Structure formats: structure tokens, C-alpha cells
């Protein structure tokens, strides 16, 4: 025991006290706090991972498939990607695409053509292919100056 932690002689001036002070109590309390905070930080780390999608990577991956059509109803070789992930694909001339290695869970798929995009929320299941169906652009999607320049512009 450290000298600083030794009990004061005042404690014994009326004889041996019924309950002796426990010099290790403070240290135990500190360790209880340390273990409690460590457990809390692990829980919060999982919560953060769940919020930013990192946890989804650990739960496996699946695929998303679909077909893209322009505002005239014609299939287009659009760009398709997963929001917040480095996963993308190019639709073929028939508009068909398959995104592979998509983390399981709720994901947002962006289908982009002529500098505008449409978002689709999908529930990806590990080991399975989810069919997004038909992704169709509308004429009003291209009623913006941003769609009039760059790749695919009229």
C-alpha cells in the first residue's frame, strides 16, 4: 500500500473501528468506470458503424439488377452506382445492368444519364439478386440546364 493511502491514526483513537477502511475501494471504482466506459464506447462504435454503413459490409453482399429507359421509353446505357460506396456499373445497350458486391441491407441505387440521376431505395439480401425493375427517366428530368451539357447531352 502506498504511504498516501495509509489510514489516519485518528481512525483508531477510540479503539479498532467496526469496519476498517478499504484502501482499494477507490481503485475498484475507477476500474468499474473504465470497464463501463469501454463497454459504452464499443456500443457507440457499433451504432456509428451501423449509421455509416460499415456494419453492412460485415453482413455479406448481394446483387441488384434492373433495366434503364430514357424519357422516350428507349433503353439506355446509363451509369448505375451505389450511394456512398465505390460500386458502379454501366448498363448495356439494352439498358440492362447488374451491380454486384452490394453490401446487404438498405441501400440507395442511383441511375444516372445525361448528368441527372434518379434514386431507388432497395433492400439488398446477402447472396441474392434483387430486381430493381424498370428505372424510367421522365421528360421533366431533363428540363434543367445541367442535363444540356457534357456526356450524353443532346
Amino acid at each position, binding site marked *: 500500500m502506498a504511504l498516501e493511502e495509509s489510514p489516519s491514526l485518528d481512525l483508531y483513537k477510540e479503539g479498532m473501528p467496526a469496519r476498517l477502511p478499504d484502501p482499494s475501494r477507490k481503485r475498484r471504482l475507477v476500474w468499474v468506470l473504465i470497464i463501463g466506459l469501454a463497454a459504452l464506447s464499443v456500443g*457507440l*462504435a457499433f451504432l456509428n458503424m451501423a*449509421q455509416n454503413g460499415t456494419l453492412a459490409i460485415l453482413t455479406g453482399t448481394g446483387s441488384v439488377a434492373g433495366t434503364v429507359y430514357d424519357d422516350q421509353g428507349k433503353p439506355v446505357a446509363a451509369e448505375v452506382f451505389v450511394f456512398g460506396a465505390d460500386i458502379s456499373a454501366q448498363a448495356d445497350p439494352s439498358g440492362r445492368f447488374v451491380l454486384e458486391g452490394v453490401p446487404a441491407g438498405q441501400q440507395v441505387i442511383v441511375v444516372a444519364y445525361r448528368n441527372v*440521376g*434518379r434514386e431507388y431505395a432497395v433492400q439488398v439480401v446477402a447472396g441474392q439478386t434483387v430486381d430493381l425493375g424498370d428505372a424510367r427517366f421522365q421528360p421533366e428530368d431533363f428540363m434543367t*440546364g*445541367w442535363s444540356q451539357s457534357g456526356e450524353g447531352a443532346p
Partner: protein
Amino acid sequence: MKYTVRRFQKGQGLVEYALLLLLIAIVGGLALNAMGVSIPDIYNQVMAGLRGEDAACSPLARAGKEWDAFKDKFWRGGIAQKDGGFQVCPLCGGLLPGYSGSDYRVDLSGVKVQNVNPTWNGYGVAFRAEYGKKGLNGYMFEIEKVNKNAPVQIYFSKWVNGKQIRPPLAVKNLPPDFDWNNPPDISVKAEGDTFIAYLDGKEVLKASDKTYTEGGAGVVSNLGTKLDFADFAVNLPVCEEVK
């Protein structure tokens, strides 16, 4: 021997307290992150508060010589200083360098436009935005006139990997008390998941989205417009609106 043990125990106590403080800091940081609170924003607000009430409303960032220009196969360039103000070429834009925050208000003032083409006229501000290899990610508020017969529209939109997401987050026609030929100043306040746009200090449009929680701020010009402006600044949302 006894001396050695005592020294060891004292050292161990310090390690325990250091561990305790470290864990408190980690738990605090993780909890704020989980609640969507930006630590740089808190730092900015505390520092602004320490500088006093007047200084607290001094801009967090302001237009200067340097801009992070948009330049790729889509965007045509950045923002240049001109005649004591700034000029944005058609289909150009830029972000204030080195600034990123969560809750703030952007103020674009002293606006003048030259419509260099009869179509796709407009200008706007980007907020909670970043520009990288994949293009622009973030939000934009714009005033746009597609052609001479179309109504002037104001709208909030989201950008993902350089693509403008359709439909817009919120859209409406320019209120009748504003004149497209006398282009208004723009202020946009972003607080939490709510965005409010002001034209010449008057609230005109509101939108909500949770995709981007922080990012930089900048100015953009549409395909048919050359934009001149006197000033662009980022302020704390609590500070008075620009009139």
C-alpha cells in the same frame, strides 16, 4: 523492494486516470457523431462566442482570391476576381477553399447576371458540398429560367457523384414580388436536415434531406448565364439574415 512496489502502484494509478480520461473523450466523440453533431461546428461556435457577440457573427469563411474550382468533362471552370467582385463563367462554379461545416448560412450578395444564351439561365449556391474525383456531392439552391417562355423557378436539389438528382427536393415558381431582371441576393440556411432559402432576406423555399450532414459552400452559374457577385460568405445560422 517496498519502495519499488509503491512507485509502481502510484504509476498504475496515473495510467488508470489517463485511461479514464481517454475513454470519456472517446465516448463523448462517438456520442456526438451518432447524434449527427459536428465537432468542428462546436469548436467554431465556441471560438466565435469567446470572441464576443459582434465577432461571433463575423463570417466563418468568405470569398477571396482562391476558390476550389469545378473543372472536369462537365464543368467548365471556376470563379475569378473581377472589378472588386467575382465572376462565374457559364457552367462554372467553385467552393470556398478549406471550409467545411454542418450548420451554417451562406450569403450571396451583389448579384448581377448576363444571360449569354437565351436558354438555361440561372445561378445558385452549393452547400454541404464537396468536389472530388467523382464530381460534386452535396446540395444546391438555384434560380433557373429554362427559356424565355418558361416561368422562373427556384429549387433545392441534391447532387451525387456529379449528377443532379431528380426530382428536386423542393421546387416552386419565383414569387411575383421578385424580378428576374433584377436578380435577388440569395441566403440559404442549413440546420440539421432542414434547409431554408431567402431571396433578398425574405424566406421563399424550404426543403428537408438527411443525405449530407456536412460539407463546404460555393457559387455556381448555369449553362446560359455569366454571374457577377460582390460577396459570398458563410455565417453562423443564428446571425442576422443579410438584407
